[in-house]
Protein backbone atom coordinates (compact mmCIF):
# COMPACT_ATOMS: atom_id res chain seq x y z
CA UNK A 1 0.00 0.00 0.00
CA UNK A 2 1.08 3.45 -0.73
CA UNK A 3 1.34 5.61 2.31
CA UNK A 4 -0.33 8.92 1.78
CA UNK A 5 1.98 11.45 3.29
CA UNK A 6 0.37 13.15 6.16
CA UNK A 7 1.15 16.70 5.18
CA UNK A 8 -0.20 18.17 8.37
CA UNK A 9 2.13 16.21 10.56
CA UNK A 10 4.96 15.91 8.11
CA UNK A 11 8.38 15.72 9.56
CA UNK A 12 11.00 17.97 8.06
CA UNK A 13 12.62 15.02 6.46
CA UNK A 14 9.44 14.11 4.75
CA UNK A 15 9.01 17.61 3.51
CA UNK A 16 12.51 17.69 2.23
CA UNK A 17 11.97 14.40 0.48
CA UNK A 18 8.82 15.66 -1.16
CA UNK A 19 10.42 18.87 -2.30
CA UNK A 20 13.44 17.05 -3.64
CA UNK A 21 11.30 14.50 -5.36
CA UNK A 22 9.23 17.15 -7.05
CA UNK A 23 12.33 18.97 -8.17
CA UNK A 24 13.88 15.77 -9.46
CA UNK A 25 10.87 14.76 -11.43
CA UNK A 26 10.17 18.20 -12.78
CA UNK A 27 13.68 18.86 -13.92
CA UNK A 28 13.92 15.39 -15.39
CA UNK A 29 10.79 16.03 -17.30
CA UNK A 30 11.98 19.43 -18.45
CA UNK A 31 15.23 17.90 -19.58
CA UNK A 32 13.27 15.93 -22.03
CA UNK A 33 10.76 18.55 -22.84
CA UNK A 34 13.08 21.49 -23.49
CA UNK A 35 13.65 22.20 -27.10
CA UNK A 36 17.10 23.60 -26.72
CA UNK A 37 19.73 21.03 -25.83
CA UNK A 38 21.47 23.53 -23.64
CA UNK A 39 18.37 24.04 -21.57
CA UNK A 40 18.05 20.33 -21.27
CA UNK A 41 21.57 20.10 -20.06
CA UNK A 42 20.95 22.69 -17.40
CA UNK A 43 17.77 20.98 -16.27
CA UNK A 44 19.63 17.71 -16.14
CA UNK A 45 22.23 19.37 -14.03
CA UNK A 46 19.60 20.44 -11.56
CA UNK A 47 18.11 16.99 -11.63
CA UNK A 48 21.41 15.39 -10.76
CA UNK A 49 21.97 17.90 -8.03
CA UNK A 50 18.60 17.08 -6.54
CA UNK A 51 19.53 13.43 -6.62
CA UNK A 52 22.65 14.34 -4.76
CA UNK A 53 20.28 15.91 -2.28
CA UNK A 54 18.53 12.59 -1.97
CA UNK A 55 21.82 10.90 -1.25
CA UNK A 56 22.51 13.42 1.45
CA UNK A 57 19.09 12.85 2.81
CA UNK A 58 19.88 9.17 2.98
CA UNK A 59 23.02 10.12 4.81
CA UNK A 60 25.47 8.78 2.26
CA UNK A 61 27.65 11.80 2.03
CA UNK A 62 30.48 10.16 0.18
CA UNK A 63 28.29 8.96 -2.60
CA UNK A 64 26.72 12.37 -2.82
CA UNK A 65 30.09 13.88 -3.43
CA UNK A 66 31.03 11.27 -5.93
CA UNK A 67 27.78 11.79 -7.73
CA UNK A 68 28.42 15.47 -7.87
CA UNK A 69 31.90 14.98 -9.18
CA UNK A 70 31.22 12.23 -11.67
CA UNK A 71 27.92 13.29 -13.07
CA UNK A 72 28.06 16.99 -12.83
CA UNK A 73 31.77 17.32 -13.00
CA UNK A 74 32.51 14.81 -15.70
CA UNK A 75 29.55 13.55 -17.57
CA UNK A 76 27.63 16.77 -17.78
CA UNK A 77 30.68 18.72 -18.76
CA UNK A 78 31.33 16.20 -21.49
CA UNK A 79 27.83 16.59 -22.77
CA UNK A 80 27.84 20.33 -22.60
CA UNK A 81 31.16 20.43 -24.39
CA UNK A 82 29.80 18.25 -27.10
CA UNK A 83 26.76 20.43 -27.50
CA UNK A 84 28.82 23.52 -27.75
CA UNK A 85 31.53 22.01 -29.90
CA UNK A 86 29.11 20.82 -32.44
CA UNK A 87 27.03 23.92 -32.14
CA UNK A 88 23.97 21.83 -31.56
CA UNK A 89 22.12 24.35 -29.51
CA UNK A 90 19.60 25.01 -32.21
CA UNK A 91 15.90 24.52 -32.12
CA UNK A 92 15.95 22.83 -35.44
CA UNK A 93 14.99 19.45 -34.18
CA UNK A 94 12.21 18.06 -36.26
CA UNK A 95 9.69 16.59 -33.92
CA UNK A 96 8.68 13.11 -34.44
CA UNK A 97 5.34 12.65 -36.10
CA UNK A 98 2.43 13.33 -33.81
CA UNK A 99 1.44 9.70 -33.74
CA UNK A 100 4.89 8.78 -32.51
CA UNK A 101 4.81 11.38 -29.82
CA UNK A 102 1.39 10.32 -28.78
CA UNK A 103 2.64 6.77 -28.75
CA UNK A 104 5.57 7.83 -26.60
CA UNK A 105 3.26 9.45 -24.10
CA UNK A 106 0.95 6.48 -24.05
CA UNK A 107 3.88 4.15 -23.62
CA UNK A 108 5.24 6.31 -20.85
CA UNK A 109 1.91 6.24 -19.02
CA UNK A 110 1.58 2.56 -19.64
CA UNK A 111 5.03 1.80 -18.31
CA UNK A 112 4.51 3.93 -15.22
CA UNK A 113 1.19 2.31 -14.66
CA UNK A 114 2.52 -1.18 -15.07
CA UNK A 115 5.53 -0.68 -12.85
CA UNK A 116 3.68 1.16 -10.13
CA UNK A 117 0.71 -1.14 -10.21
CA UNK A 118 3.09 -4.01 -9.98
CA UNK A 119 4.64 -2.72 -6.82
CA UNK A 120 1.33 -1.72 -5.33
CA UNK A 121 -0.03 -5.09 -6.11
CA UNK A 122 2.63 -6.81 -4.15
CA UNK A 123 2.73 -7.58 -0.50
CA UNK A 124 3.41 -4.39 1.44
CA UNK A 125 6.55 -4.14 3.43
CA UNK A 126 5.40 -4.42 6.96
CA UNK A 127 7.05 -3.48 10.16
CA UNK A 128 9.83 -1.19 11.12
CA UNK A 129 12.90 -0.80 9.07
CA UNK A 130 15.80 -2.35 10.83
CA UNK A 131 18.57 -0.27 12.12
CA UNK A 132 21.75 -2.09 12.89
CA UNK A 133 23.38 0.97 14.24
CA UNK A 134 26.56 -0.04 12.53
CA UNK A 135 28.29 2.32 10.29
CA UNK A 136 27.83 1.10 6.79
CA UNK A 137 28.23 4.14 4.60
CA UNK A 138 31.08 6.16 5.78
CA UNK A 139 34.04 6.57 3.47
CA UNK A 140 35.98 4.23 5.66
CA UNK A 141 33.56 1.39 5.38
CA UNK A 142 32.93 1.92 1.71
CA UNK A 143 36.60 1.96 1.02
CA UNK A 144 37.04 -1.31 2.85
CA UNK A 145 34.20 -2.99 1.04
CA UNK A 146 35.30 -1.66 -2.29
CA UNK A 147 38.89 -2.69 -1.97
CA UNK A 148 38.47 -5.92 -0.08
CA UNK A 149 35.32 -7.66 -1.11
CA UNK A 150 34.88 -5.82 -4.36
CA UNK A 151 38.48 -5.74 -5.33
CA UNK A 152 38.00 -7.77 -8.45
CA UNK A 153 35.09 -5.76 -9.83
CA UNK A 154 36.97 -2.65 -8.93
CA UNK A 155 39.91 -3.77 -11.00
CA UNK A 156 37.62 -5.02 -13.66
CA UNK A 157 36.01 -1.60 -13.87
CA UNK A 158 39.39 -0.34 -14.90
CA UNK A 159 39.29 -2.70 -17.82
CA UNK A 160 35.92 -1.26 -18.67
CA UNK A 161 37.25 2.25 -18.61
CA UNK A 162 40.27 1.15 -20.58
CA UNK A 163 38.04 -0.29 -23.23
CA UNK A 164 35.98 2.86 -23.30
CA UNK A 165 39.11 4.87 -23.65
CA UNK A 166 40.53 2.78 -26.44
CA UNK A 167 37.17 2.88 -28.08
CA UNK A 168 36.79 6.60 -27.88
CA UNK A 169 40.27 7.05 -29.24
CA UNK A 170 39.70 4.51 -31.95
CA UNK A 171 36.58 6.25 -33.05
CA UNK A 172 38.02 9.68 -33.23
CA UNK A 173 41.64 9.05 -34.13
CA UNK A 174 42.60 10.12 -37.60
CA UNK A 175 43.93 7.24 -39.53
CA UNK A 176 47.32 7.09 -41.04
CA UNK A 177 46.62 5.36 -44.27
CA UNK A 178 50.22 4.60 -45.02
CA UNK A 179 51.39 1.35 -43.68
Amino acid at each position, binding site marked *: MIRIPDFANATPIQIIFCVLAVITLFTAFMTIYSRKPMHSAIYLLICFTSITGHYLLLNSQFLAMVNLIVYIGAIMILIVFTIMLMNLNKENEVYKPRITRLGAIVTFCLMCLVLIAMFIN*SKPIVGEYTTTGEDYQSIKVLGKVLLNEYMVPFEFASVLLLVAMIGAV*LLSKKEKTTK
Partner: protein
Amino acid sequence: MNTLIAITGLGVLCLLFEILNFRKAIVPITIIGLLAILGLTVSEFNLPESYYNNMIVVSKFSTVFSSLFIVLTILLVALAHDFYEDHPTKISDFIAIKVFMLAGAVAMVSFGNLAMFFLGIEILSISLYVLAASNRMNLKSNEAGMKYFLMGSFASGIILFGICLIYGAMGSFDIAEISDWSRSAELPIWFPIGISLVTIGMLFKIAAVPFHFWAPDVYEGSPALTTATMSTLVKVVAMATLYKLLSAMNIDTNEYISTAFINIIVVLSIASMTVGNIMALKQTNVKRMLAFSGISHAGFMLMALLSISTSAGSLLYYASAYSLSGIAAFAVILYVCKNKDNENIENFNGLGKNNPLMAAVLTAALLSMAGIPIFAGFFAKMVLFNQTIEAGHLVVVIAAVINSIISVGYYFKLILAMYSKEPNEAVAKTPFVFYAVAVVSILLNIVLGLFPSAVLDLLG
Protein backbone atom coordinates in the same frame (compact mmCIF):
# COMPACT_ATOMS: atom_id res chain seq x y z
CA MET B 1 40.15 -16.63 -12.28
CA ASN B 2 43.53 -17.23 -13.80
CA THR B 3 41.85 -17.17 -17.16
CA LEU B 4 40.44 -13.75 -16.56
CA ILE B 5 43.71 -12.34 -15.33
CA ALA B 6 45.60 -13.86 -18.20
CA ILE B 7 43.18 -12.53 -20.76
CA THR B 8 43.31 -9.06 -19.35
CA GLY B 9 47.06 -9.25 -19.31
CA LEU B 10 47.07 -10.35 -22.92
CA GLY B 11 44.89 -7.37 -23.79
CA VAL B 12 47.28 -5.00 -22.17
CA LEU B 13 50.13 -6.75 -23.93
CA CYS B 14 48.48 -6.06 -27.25
CA LEU B 15 48.40 -2.38 -26.45
CA LEU B 16 52.02 -2.50 -25.44
CA PHE B 17 53.02 -4.12 -28.72
CA GLU B 18 51.67 -1.18 -30.58
CA ILE B 19 53.83 1.08 -28.54
CA LEU B 20 56.80 -1.19 -29.02
CA ASN B 21 56.06 -1.33 -32.73
CA PHE B 22 55.56 -5.05 -32.94
CA ARG B 23 52.56 -4.59 -35.11
CA LYS B 24 53.14 -7.61 -37.30
CA ALA B 25 53.44 -9.91 -34.34
CA ILE B 26 50.26 -8.91 -32.66
CA VAL B 27 47.92 -11.40 -34.27
CA PRO B 28 50.18 -14.42 -33.99
CA ILE B 29 51.18 -13.65 -30.47
CA THR B 30 47.61 -13.05 -29.43
CA ILE B 31 46.62 -16.35 -30.95
CA ILE B 32 49.43 -18.15 -29.22
CA GLY B 33 48.55 -16.41 -26.01
CA LEU B 34 44.93 -17.35 -26.35
CA LEU B 35 45.89 -20.92 -27.05
CA ALA B 36 47.92 -20.94 -23.88
CA ILE B 37 44.99 -19.46 -22.01
CA LEU B 38 42.78 -22.10 -23.52
CA GLY B 39 45.09 -24.70 -22.06
CA LEU B 40 44.99 -22.94 -18.74
CA THR B 41 41.24 -22.85 -18.79
CA VAL B 42 40.88 -26.44 -19.71
CA SER B 43 43.21 -27.38 -16.90
CA GLU B 44 40.81 -25.76 -14.49
CA PHE B 45 37.98 -27.91 -15.72
CA ASN B 46 37.95 -30.26 -12.79
CA LEU B 47 38.94 -27.73 -10.19
CA PRO B 48 35.81 -25.86 -9.27
CA GLU B 49 36.70 -23.06 -6.94
CA SER B 50 35.60 -19.58 -6.10
CA TYR B 51 37.92 -16.65 -5.91
CA TYR B 52 37.92 -13.33 -4.12
CA ASN B 53 34.83 -13.49 -2.01
CA ASN B 54 32.89 -15.36 -4.60
CA MET B 55 33.49 -12.71 -7.18
CA ILE B 56 34.61 -15.31 -9.66
CA VAL B 57 33.39 -18.84 -9.47
CA VAL B 58 35.18 -21.34 -11.61
CA SER B 59 32.98 -24.28 -12.34
CA LYS B 60 32.64 -26.81 -15.08
CA PHE B 61 30.09 -24.62 -16.68
CA SER B 62 32.32 -21.59 -16.68
CA THR B 63 35.44 -23.36 -17.84
CA VAL B 64 33.69 -25.11 -20.66
CA PHE B 65 31.98 -22.02 -21.91
CA SER B 66 35.10 -19.95 -21.41
CA SER B 67 36.98 -22.43 -23.53
CA LEU B 68 34.39 -22.13 -26.23
CA PHE B 69 34.66 -18.35 -26.12
CA ILE B 70 38.40 -18.53 -26.28
CA VAL B 71 38.26 -20.81 -29.28
CA LEU B 72 35.86 -18.48 -31.00
CA THR B 73 38.03 -15.51 -30.19
CA ILE B 74 41.07 -17.27 -31.56
CA LEU B 75 39.27 -17.83 -34.82
CA LEU B 76 38.00 -14.28 -34.90
CA VAL B 77 41.38 -12.84 -34.12
CA ALA B 78 42.92 -14.97 -36.81
CA LEU B 79 40.56 -13.41 -39.28
CA ALA B 80 41.43 -9.95 -38.04
CA HIS B 81 44.82 -9.64 -39.61
CA ASP B 82 43.61 -9.66 -43.15
CA PHE B 83 40.44 -7.89 -42.34
CA TYR B 84 42.17 -4.87 -40.89
CA GLU B 85 45.02 -4.73 -43.34
CA ASP B 86 43.81 -1.31 -44.42
CA HIS B 87 43.95 -0.03 -40.87
CA PRO B 88 47.48 -0.87 -39.84
CA THR B 89 47.65 1.68 -37.09
CA LYS B 90 44.53 0.49 -35.40
CA ILE B 91 44.99 -3.20 -35.45
CA SER B 92 46.37 -3.33 -31.95
CA ASP B 93 43.34 -1.47 -30.71
CA PHE B 94 41.01 -3.82 -32.46
CA ILE B 95 42.74 -6.87 -31.17
CA ALA B 96 42.95 -5.45 -27.69
CA ILE B 97 39.28 -4.64 -27.68
CA LYS B 98 38.51 -8.15 -28.81
CA VAL B 99 40.64 -9.61 -26.09
CA PHE B 100 39.05 -7.39 -23.47
CA MET B 101 35.70 -8.35 -24.81
CA LEU B 102 36.69 -11.94 -24.24
CA ALA B 103 37.56 -10.98 -20.68
CA GLY B 104 34.07 -9.54 -20.30
CA ALA B 105 32.63 -12.70 -21.76
CA VAL B 106 34.56 -14.90 -19.40
CA ALA B 107 33.49 -12.73 -16.51
CA MET B 108 29.91 -13.17 -17.60
CA VAL B 109 29.96 -16.93 -17.42
CA SER B 110 32.10 -17.19 -14.34
CA PHE B 111 30.65 -14.38 -12.26
CA GLY B 112 29.86 -15.06 -8.66
CA ASN B 113 28.57 -11.64 -7.98
CA LEU B 114 26.15 -9.51 -9.89
CA ALA B 115 28.71 -6.74 -9.98
CA MET B 116 31.00 -8.92 -12.05
CA PHE B 117 28.10 -9.86 -14.23
CA PHE B 118 27.19 -6.26 -14.82
CA LEU B 119 30.72 -5.16 -15.50
CA GLY B 120 31.25 -8.09 -17.79
CA ILE B 121 28.21 -7.35 -19.83
CA GLU B 122 29.14 -3.71 -20.02
CA ILE B 123 32.64 -4.44 -21.19
CA LEU B 124 31.21 -6.69 -23.81
CA SER B 125 28.63 -4.13 -24.89
CA ILE B 126 30.92 -1.16 -24.95
CA SER B 127 33.50 -3.07 -26.94
CA LEU B 128 30.80 -3.93 -29.39
CA TYR B 129 29.55 -0.37 -29.67
CA VAL B 130 33.05 0.61 -30.57
CA LEU B 131 33.57 -2.26 -32.97
CA ALA B 132 30.23 -1.68 -34.66
CA ALA B 133 31.02 1.93 -35.28
CA SER B 134 34.67 1.30 -35.95
CA ASN B 135 34.52 1.94 -39.66
CA ARG B 136 34.08 5.56 -38.94
CA MET B 137 34.05 6.91 -42.44
CA ASN B 138 31.24 4.57 -43.33
CA LEU B 139 27.75 5.88 -42.72
CA LYS B 140 26.32 2.43 -42.25
CA SER B 141 28.86 1.58 -39.65
CA ASN B 142 28.14 4.83 -37.83
CA GLU B 143 24.48 4.18 -37.92
CA ALA B 144 24.95 0.66 -36.71
CA GLY B 145 27.10 1.84 -33.85
CA MET B 146 24.63 4.52 -32.89
CA LYS B 147 21.64 2.22 -33.00
CA TYR B 148 23.39 -0.42 -31.07
CA PHE B 149 24.60 2.05 -28.55
CA LEU B 150 21.21 3.65 -27.99
CA MET B 151 19.36 0.42 -27.62
CA GLY B 152 22.18 -1.30 -25.82
CA SER B 153 22.48 1.32 -23.14
CA PHE B 154 18.74 1.33 -22.81
CA ALA B 155 18.89 -2.39 -22.19
CA SER B 156 21.76 -1.86 -19.79
CA GLY B 157 19.55 0.51 -17.86
CA ILE B 158 16.91 -2.16 -17.62
CA ILE B 159 19.41 -4.76 -16.50
CA LEU B 160 20.72 -2.37 -13.92
CA PHE B 161 17.22 -1.73 -12.68
CA GLY B 162 16.68 -5.45 -12.44
CA ILE B 163 19.88 -5.94 -10.49
CA CYS B 164 18.84 -3.16 -8.21
CA LEU B 165 15.53 -4.80 -7.46
CA ILE B 166 17.22 -8.11 -6.82
CA TYR B 167 19.50 -6.37 -4.45
CA GLY B 168 16.52 -4.73 -2.86
CA ALA B 169 14.98 -8.08 -2.26
CA MET B 170 18.07 -9.92 -1.14
CA GLY B 171 20.39 -7.30 0.26
CA SER B 172 23.25 -9.00 -1.47
CA PHE B 173 24.87 -9.32 -4.85
CA ASP B 174 26.35 -12.68 -4.19
CA ILE B 175 24.94 -15.32 -6.47
CA ALA B 176 25.36 -18.14 -4.02
CA GLU B 177 23.47 -16.28 -1.33
CA ILE B 178 20.79 -15.14 -3.69
CA SER B 179 20.45 -18.66 -4.91
CA ASP B 180 20.02 -19.96 -1.40
CA TRP B 181 17.55 -17.34 -0.36
CA SER B 182 15.59 -17.56 -3.55
CA ARG B 183 14.26 -20.88 -2.38
CA SER B 184 12.63 -19.37 0.64
CA ALA B 185 9.01 -18.47 0.36
CA GLU B 186 9.04 -15.04 1.92
CA LEU B 187 10.46 -12.94 -0.82
CA PRO B 188 9.51 -9.43 -1.75
CA ILE B 189 8.05 -9.18 -5.19
CA TRP B 190 11.09 -7.12 -6.13
CA PHE B 191 13.00 -10.27 -6.63
CA PRO B 192 10.93 -11.78 -9.45
CA ILE B 193 10.54 -8.36 -11.00
CA GLY B 194 14.26 -7.94 -10.86
CA ILE B 195 14.82 -11.31 -12.47
CA SER B 196 12.36 -10.46 -15.17
CA LEU B 197 14.04 -7.20 -15.95
CA VAL B 198 17.49 -8.76 -16.04
CA THR B 199 16.11 -11.48 -18.26
CA ILE B 200 14.61 -8.91 -20.56
CA GLY B 201 17.93 -7.16 -20.76
CA MET B 202 19.65 -10.40 -21.64
CA LEU B 203 16.97 -11.23 -24.16
CA PHE B 204 17.90 -8.00 -25.81
CA LYS B 205 21.51 -9.10 -25.95
CA ILE B 206 20.65 -12.41 -27.55
CA ALA B 207 18.21 -10.61 -29.84
CA ALA B 208 15.03 -12.43 -29.00
CA VAL B 209 11.73 -11.15 -30.29
CA PRO B 210 10.49 -8.49 -29.56
CA PHE B 211 13.85 -7.11 -28.49
CA HIS B 212 15.53 -8.12 -31.68
CA PHE B 213 15.05 -5.07 -33.86
CA TRP B 214 18.54 -3.82 -33.44
CA ALA B 215 20.14 -7.02 -34.64
CA PRO B 216 19.54 -6.90 -38.39
CA ASP B 217 20.44 -3.26 -38.70
CA VAL B 218 23.53 -3.53 -36.59
CA TYR B 219 24.68 -6.74 -38.22
CA GLU B 220 24.25 -5.25 -41.61
CA GLY B 221 25.94 -1.98 -40.87
CA SER B 222 28.87 -3.20 -38.84
CA PRO B 223 32.11 -4.26 -40.41
CA ALA B 224 31.80 -7.92 -41.34
CA LEU B 225 34.22 -9.14 -38.75
CA THR B 226 32.28 -7.38 -36.05
CA THR B 227 29.14 -8.96 -37.33
CA ALA B 228 30.87 -12.28 -37.11
CA THR B 229 31.77 -11.53 -33.53
CA MET B 230 28.30 -10.44 -32.64
CA SER B 231 26.53 -13.29 -34.28
CA THR B 232 28.77 -15.95 -32.84
CA LEU B 233 30.65 -15.00 -29.73
CA VAL B 234 28.32 -12.43 -28.28
CA LYS B 235 25.14 -14.33 -28.87
CA VAL B 236 26.57 -17.41 -27.28
CA VAL B 237 27.94 -15.46 -24.34
CA ALA B 238 24.64 -13.78 -23.70
CA MET B 239 22.81 -17.04 -23.92
CA ALA B 240 25.17 -18.82 -21.56
CA THR B 241 24.94 -15.97 -19.12
CA LEU B 242 21.19 -15.89 -19.23
CA TYR B 243 21.15 -19.60 -18.63
CA LYS B 244 23.53 -19.28 -15.72
CA LEU B 245 21.59 -16.41 -14.21
CA LEU B 246 18.25 -18.10 -14.43
CA SER B 247 19.50 -21.38 -13.12
CA ALA B 248 21.25 -19.62 -10.27
CA MET B 249 18.06 -17.76 -9.44
CA ASN B 250 16.17 -21.06 -9.38
CA ILE B 251 13.70 -19.71 -11.78
CA ASP B 252 12.23 -23.12 -12.34
CA THR B 253 11.26 -23.52 -8.70
CA ASN B 254 10.16 -20.02 -7.92
CA GLU B 255 6.57 -20.56 -6.96
CA TYR B 256 5.59 -17.05 -7.79
CA ILE B 257 6.41 -16.94 -11.45
CA SER B 258 7.80 -20.22 -12.66
CA THR B 259 4.82 -21.32 -14.75
CA ALA B 260 4.15 -17.90 -16.15
CA PHE B 261 7.82 -17.43 -16.76
CA ILE B 262 8.02 -20.68 -18.65
CA ASN B 263 5.06 -19.58 -20.72
CA ILE B 264 6.82 -16.38 -21.56
CA ILE B 265 9.90 -18.27 -22.63
CA VAL B 266 7.75 -20.54 -24.74
CA VAL B 267 6.10 -17.62 -26.47
CA LEU B 268 9.32 -15.72 -26.97
CA SER B 269 11.09 -18.79 -28.22
CA ILE B 270 8.42 -19.51 -30.79
CA ALA B 271 8.16 -15.87 -31.75
CA SER B 272 11.91 -15.51 -32.17
CA MET B 273 12.17 -18.56 -34.33
CA THR B 274 9.26 -17.58 -36.47
CA VAL B 275 10.08 -13.93 -36.90
CA GLY B 276 13.73 -14.67 -37.48
CA ASN B 277 13.13 -17.29 -40.06
CA ILE B 278 10.36 -15.60 -41.93
CA MET B 279 12.13 -12.30 -42.06
CA ALA B 280 15.30 -13.92 -43.29
CA LEU B 281 13.51 -15.26 -46.34
CA LYS B 282 13.41 -12.02 -48.25
CA GLN B 283 16.78 -10.59 -47.36
CA THR B 284 19.30 -9.81 -50.00
CA ASN B 285 22.14 -8.90 -47.72
CA VAL B 286 23.83 -11.95 -46.37
CA LYS B 287 24.80 -10.39 -43.09
CA ARG B 288 21.27 -9.22 -42.53
CA MET B 289 20.02 -12.65 -43.42
CA LEU B 290 22.35 -14.20 -40.92
CA ALA B 291 21.16 -11.67 -38.37
CA PHE B 292 17.65 -12.96 -38.74
CA SER B 293 18.93 -16.47 -38.76
CA GLY B 294 20.69 -15.60 -35.53
CA ILE B 295 17.40 -14.39 -34.10
CA SER B 296 15.83 -17.70 -34.92
CA HIS B 297 18.73 -19.54 -33.37
CA ALA B 298 18.27 -17.45 -30.29
CA GLY B 299 14.75 -18.77 -30.26
CA PHE B 300 16.08 -22.28 -30.46
CA MET B 301 18.52 -21.70 -27.68
CA LEU B 302 15.77 -20.28 -25.52
CA MET B 303 14.30 -23.76 -25.60
CA ALA B 304 17.14 -24.77 -23.34
CA LEU B 305 15.64 -22.59 -20.64
CA LEU B 306 12.52 -24.70 -20.61
CA SER B 307 14.34 -27.55 -18.95
CA ILE B 308 16.85 -25.46 -17.16
CA SER B 309 18.05 -27.97 -14.65
CA THR B 310 19.32 -30.45 -17.21
CA SER B 311 20.01 -28.58 -20.36
CA ALA B 312 23.42 -27.08 -19.73
CA GLY B 313 25.11 -29.70 -21.86
CA SER B 314 22.75 -29.31 -24.72
CA LEU B 315 22.97 -25.56 -24.59
CA LEU B 316 26.72 -25.81 -24.73
CA TYR B 317 26.44 -28.13 -27.65
CA TYR B 318 24.02 -25.95 -29.49
CA ALA B 319 26.11 -22.90 -28.81
CA SER B 320 29.26 -24.59 -30.06
CA ALA B 321 27.58 -25.94 -33.14
CA TYR B 322 25.96 -22.67 -33.97
CA SER B 323 28.94 -20.48 -33.35
CA LEU B 324 31.38 -22.71 -35.16
CA SER B 325 29.23 -22.88 -38.22
CA GLY B 326 28.69 -19.14 -37.90
CA ILE B 327 32.41 -18.50 -37.91
CA ALA B 328 32.91 -20.79 -40.86
CA ALA B 329 30.17 -18.98 -42.74
CA PHE B 330 31.58 -15.60 -41.88
CA ALA B 331 35.07 -16.60 -42.91
CA VAL B 332 33.67 -17.28 -46.35
CA ILE B 333 31.61 -14.12 -46.32
CA LEU B 334 34.65 -12.11 -45.38
CA TYR B 335 36.55 -13.68 -48.22
CA VAL B 336 33.82 -13.11 -50.75
CA CYS B 337 32.92 -9.59 -49.75
CA LYS B 338 36.40 -8.43 -49.07
CA ASN B 339 36.59 -5.83 -51.73
CA LYS B 340 32.93 -5.22 -52.20
CA ASP B 341 30.92 -2.46 -50.68
CA ASN B 342 28.02 -4.69 -49.74
CA GLU B 343 27.35 -8.27 -48.85
CA ASN B 344 24.53 -8.99 -51.22
CA ILE B 345 23.82 -12.51 -52.28
CA GLU B 346 24.86 -11.77 -55.85
CA ASN B 347 28.42 -11.60 -54.67
CA PHE B 348 28.24 -15.30 -54.01
CA ASN B 349 27.25 -16.20 -57.53
CA GLY B 350 29.37 -18.92 -58.94
CA LEU B 351 31.46 -19.43 -55.87
CA GLY B 352 31.04 -23.13 -56.39
CA LYS B 353 33.06 -22.81 -59.57
CA ASN B 354 35.49 -20.16 -58.50
CA ASN B 355 36.41 -21.59 -55.18
CA PRO B 356 34.85 -24.95 -54.53
CA LEU B 357 36.46 -25.35 -51.14
CA MET B 358 35.08 -22.12 -49.75
CA ALA B 359 31.74 -22.86 -51.31
CA ALA B 360 31.74 -26.27 -49.71
CA VAL B 361 32.59 -24.79 -46.35
CA LEU B 362 29.82 -22.25 -46.58
CA THR B 363 27.42 -24.95 -47.70
CA ALA B 364 28.37 -27.12 -44.80
CA ALA B 365 28.02 -24.22 -42.41
CA LEU B 366 24.59 -23.38 -43.70
CA LEU B 367 23.53 -27.00 -43.62
CA SER B 368 24.67 -27.20 -40.06
CA MET B 369 22.62 -24.15 -39.19
CA ALA B 370 19.67 -25.65 -40.96
CA GLY B 371 20.08 -28.74 -38.85
CA ILE B 372 20.95 -31.29 -41.47
CA PRO B 373 22.86 -34.28 -40.21
CA ILE B 374 25.79 -35.08 -39.97
CA PHE B 375 26.72 -31.59 -38.99
CA ALA B 376 26.66 -30.60 -35.38
CA GLY B 377 23.67 -28.36 -35.92
CA PHE B 378 21.50 -31.40 -36.33
CA PHE B 379 22.44 -32.97 -33.05
CA ALA B 380 22.16 -29.65 -31.36
CA LYS B 381 18.59 -29.35 -32.46
CA MET B 382 17.83 -32.95 -31.78
CA VAL B 383 19.14 -32.84 -28.25
CA LEU B 384 17.26 -29.66 -27.54
CA PHE B 385 14.10 -31.14 -28.98
CA ASN B 386 14.63 -34.18 -26.87
CA GLN B 387 14.93 -32.17 -23.71
CA THR B 388 12.08 -29.90 -24.53
CA ILE B 389 9.76 -32.78 -25.22
CA GLU B 390 10.92 -34.32 -22.01
CA ALA B 391 9.94 -31.13 -20.27
CA GLY B 392 6.55 -31.42 -21.88
CA HIS B 393 6.65 -28.60 -24.37
CA LEU B 394 5.73 -30.41 -27.52
CA VAL B 395 4.26 -27.23 -29.00
CA VAL B 396 7.59 -25.50 -29.00
CA VAL B 397 9.22 -28.43 -30.69
CA ILE B 398 6.62 -28.53 -33.39
CA ALA B 399 7.00 -24.82 -33.94
CA ALA B 400 10.73 -25.35 -34.04
CA VAL B 401 10.34 -28.06 -36.61
CA ILE B 402 8.18 -25.91 -38.81
CA ASN B 403 10.75 -23.19 -38.46
CA SER B 404 13.56 -25.48 -39.40
CA ILE B 405 11.69 -26.11 -42.59
CA ILE B 406 11.28 -22.43 -43.31
CA SER B 407 14.92 -21.83 -42.54
CA VAL B 408 16.01 -24.15 -45.28
CA GLY B 409 14.42 -21.73 -47.70
CA TYR B 410 16.90 -18.95 -47.11
CA TYR B 411 19.94 -21.01 -46.32
CA PHE B 412 19.48 -22.64 -49.65
CA LYS B 413 19.10 -19.34 -51.38
CA LEU B 414 22.74 -18.77 -50.71
CA ILE B 415 23.69 -22.30 -51.70
CA LEU B 416 21.72 -21.91 -54.90
CA ALA B 417 23.54 -18.72 -55.70
CA MET B 418 26.87 -20.41 -55.21
CA TYR B 419 26.17 -23.41 -57.34
CA SER B 420 23.63 -22.50 -59.92
CA LYS B 421 24.68 -19.05 -61.01
CA GLU B 422 27.52 -18.06 -63.23
CA PRO B 423 30.34 -16.17 -61.53
CA ASN B 424 30.41 -12.49 -62.37
CA GLU B 425 34.10 -12.03 -61.94
CA ALA B 426 37.39 -13.75 -62.01
CA VAL B 427 38.77 -15.82 -59.20
CA ALA B 428 40.24 -13.79 -56.40
CA LYS B 429 43.17 -14.89 -54.37
CA THR B 430 42.24 -16.22 -51.01
CA PRO B 431 44.33 -15.31 -48.02
CA PHE B 432 45.47 -18.40 -46.26
CA VAL B 433 43.90 -17.57 -42.91
CA PHE B 434 40.44 -17.44 -44.39
CA TYR B 435 40.90 -20.95 -45.65
CA ALA B 436 42.38 -22.03 -42.39
CA VAL B 437 39.70 -20.53 -40.19
CA ALA B 438 36.88 -21.69 -42.42
CA VAL B 439 38.17 -25.22 -42.68
CA VAL B 440 39.14 -25.51 -39.05
CA SER B 441 35.83 -24.30 -37.77
CA ILE B 442 33.79 -26.44 -40.11
CA LEU B 443 35.93 -29.44 -39.27
CA LEU B 444 35.37 -28.78 -35.61
CA ASN B 445 31.71 -28.61 -36.37
CA ILE B 446 31.72 -31.92 -38.18
CA VAL B 447 33.80 -33.53 -35.46
CA LEU B 448 31.24 -32.33 -32.99
CA GLY B 449 28.62 -33.88 -35.18
CA LEU B 450 30.42 -37.19 -35.30
CA PHE B 451 31.19 -37.30 -31.61
CA PRO B 452 28.48 -35.33 -29.91
CA SER B 453 29.10 -37.08 -26.62
CA ALA B 454 32.42 -35.36 -26.33
CA VAL B 455 30.68 -32.09 -25.67
CA LEU B 456 27.24 -33.16 -24.56
CA ASP B 457 28.53 -35.06 -21.59
CA LEU B 458 30.86 -32.34 -20.37
CA LEU B 459 28.14 -30.76 -18.33
CA GLY B 460 26.33 -33.90 -17.35
